[in-house]
């Protein structure tokens, strides 16, 4: 329960970062390089203005955390939402229509699966950057989201296809068919809501995974822009300072990531219960 509270507080801060954060870490004009790498306020040399210390450009870690979590969450949630969308639609089609549509889509999944996610993300990110050189930040996010989306949808497609195959043969679907409801509407109104359970569970895990992939892409040099650091970027940057004793640059974002993963999981559990009519 306490964990849930802390976790949701984190997410809240992330969502409303511009209003709660003490500084704006994305506004380069406010950065003072001379404030760089200050330790947390309670340590020797800390500055009370920067509660959790600063990173290597003088950004306030606390504010950067909030803004970064916002980006990470945005990237995580959008990409997961998109992959859910793609995956669910394709999975439904494959499962419901069967035949060559199914065969084709499942081969496509095989192909996608044989690209490890990081690789696909790496490639897409590379391609995206090449296609939109000197892209604005938003575009960079677009590319990131796309990269993570394209790696993520396969799982949903497979899951949904599996459950669709089961649901399709349930009697309530047949009842709708007997009534003459067209297949697409059956899929949308009958099958879809009943296959979303596992999808949601998967999605909550995937949000965390998406954030990690984003961080890993940062590690490999194709992540979010460094002027608007995401959690992943912060961790990656902080990573360089682990040996030099400036642990706070990476530890706080890491903890934040764990907290987010935790809260998203809790959210998922709650959502699953909330969406289940039997528990209403």
């Amino acid at each position, binding site marked *: 329960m306490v964990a849930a509270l802390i976790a949701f507080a984190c997410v809240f801060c992330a969502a409303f970062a511009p209003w709660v954060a003490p500084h704006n870490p994305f506004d380069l004009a406010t950065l003072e390089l001379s404030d760089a790498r200050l330790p947390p306020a309670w340590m020797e040399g800390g500055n009370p203005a920067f509660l959790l210390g600063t990173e290597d450009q003088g950004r306030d870690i606390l504010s950067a955390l909030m803004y970064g979590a916002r980006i990470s969450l945005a990237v995580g949630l959008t990409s997961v939402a998109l992959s859910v969308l793609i995956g669910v639609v394709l999975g439904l089609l494959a499962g419901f229509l069967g035949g060559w549509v199914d065969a084709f889509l499942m*081969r496509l999944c*095989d*192909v996608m*699966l*044989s*690209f*490890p*996610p*990081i*690789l696909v993300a*790496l*490639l*897409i990110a*590379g*391609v995206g950057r*090449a*296609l939109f050189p000197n892209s604005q930040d938003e575009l960079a996010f677009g590319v990131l989201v796309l990269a993570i989306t394209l790696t993520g949808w396969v799982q949903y497609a497979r899951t949904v296809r599996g459950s669709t195959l089961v649901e399709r043969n349930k009697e309530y679907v047949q009842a709708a068919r007997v009534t003459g409801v067209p297949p697409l509407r059956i899929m949308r109104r009958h099958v879809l809501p009943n296959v979303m359970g596992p999808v949601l569970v998967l999605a909550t*895990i995937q949000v*965390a*995974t998406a*954030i*990690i992939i984003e*961080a*890993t892409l940062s*590690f*490999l040099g194709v992540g979010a822009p460094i002027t608007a650091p995401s959690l*992943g970027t912060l*961790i*990656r940057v902080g*990573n360089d300072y*682990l*040996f030099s004793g400036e642990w706070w640059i*990476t530890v706080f974002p*890491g903890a934040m*990531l*764990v907290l*987010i*993963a*935790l809260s998203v*999981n809790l959210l998922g559990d709650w959502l699953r219960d909330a969406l289940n009519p039997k528990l209403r």
Partner: protein
Amino acid sequence: MAQAVLVMVSVAFIAFMLFQYVGDPVVFLLGQDATPEQIRNLRADLGLDQPVVVQFWHFLVNAAQGEFGISLRQGAKVSRLIAERLPATVELAMVAAVLALLLGIPMGVYAALKRGTFVSQLLMTVSLLGVSLPTFLIGILLILVFAVNLGWFPSFGRGDVVQLGWWSSGLLTAKGWHHIVLPALTLAIFQLTLIMRLVRAEMLEVLRTDYIKFARARGLTNRAVHFGHALKNTLVPVMTITGLQLGGLIAFAIITETVFQWPGMGLLFIQAVTFADVPVMAAYLCLIALIFVVINLVVDLLYFAVDPRLRIERAGAH
């Protein structure tokens, strides 16, 4: 087989299309003082001035003969480069997989059997940590603690290797084992968590089935019920996922190999990406696809071995 080939060709094609955007290898092949003419010549020499489709065709023709062309960066046959690197990655992935299974399955079983106890809840929470920390961070932390501060394990490389034909094995020397511990652990952590959670979920599912209830009703010992009956049935679905994850293991090896300077294919690939070395990248991806296909095949066979329901029925049972 046909499907496998199809998958691989599409992988190669997609890869090839994408790589055109990854960068320009020529920039790195020549020193800073190279003249524009030199650059033009080199580009022509490498065939990089040809349309992508033509390049892909050449690649395919080569690939069909088991040749993946020539690394732009290293000027060596890609097949040789990969053959050199393959053993390191495979050994790493295998050790990691074994580690993940050996730790993940018992932990999952424990969490399922002792559901609700403090330890199992702790396991579940800590496991969340395993999936929500990036591999590279875990790797660096392990190095910091075990290599630098405690000095128990080396921080990079493979240690001594023994050549067995073209296969170089680090698993035959004490030093090799010493070196593989940290990277394998790093690589295993994510999978371990996944396997543990999966085993737990499946186990709970199986424990609810009628045949478990019936086994209990027959008065079998707890051990026989949990391990003889429940666990084996749990492993059937776990196998599929694990198979798929093994492919993921090799992918995640990219990061691990980077962090631990493990001379495997992932490192080769990352270096190739940095220098836009298209043939190496394409070959790597094809190989990953191949491994994936093979793993799938093996999993199917294993399925066959474990689950009698899938065996072809002979001698009419009905």
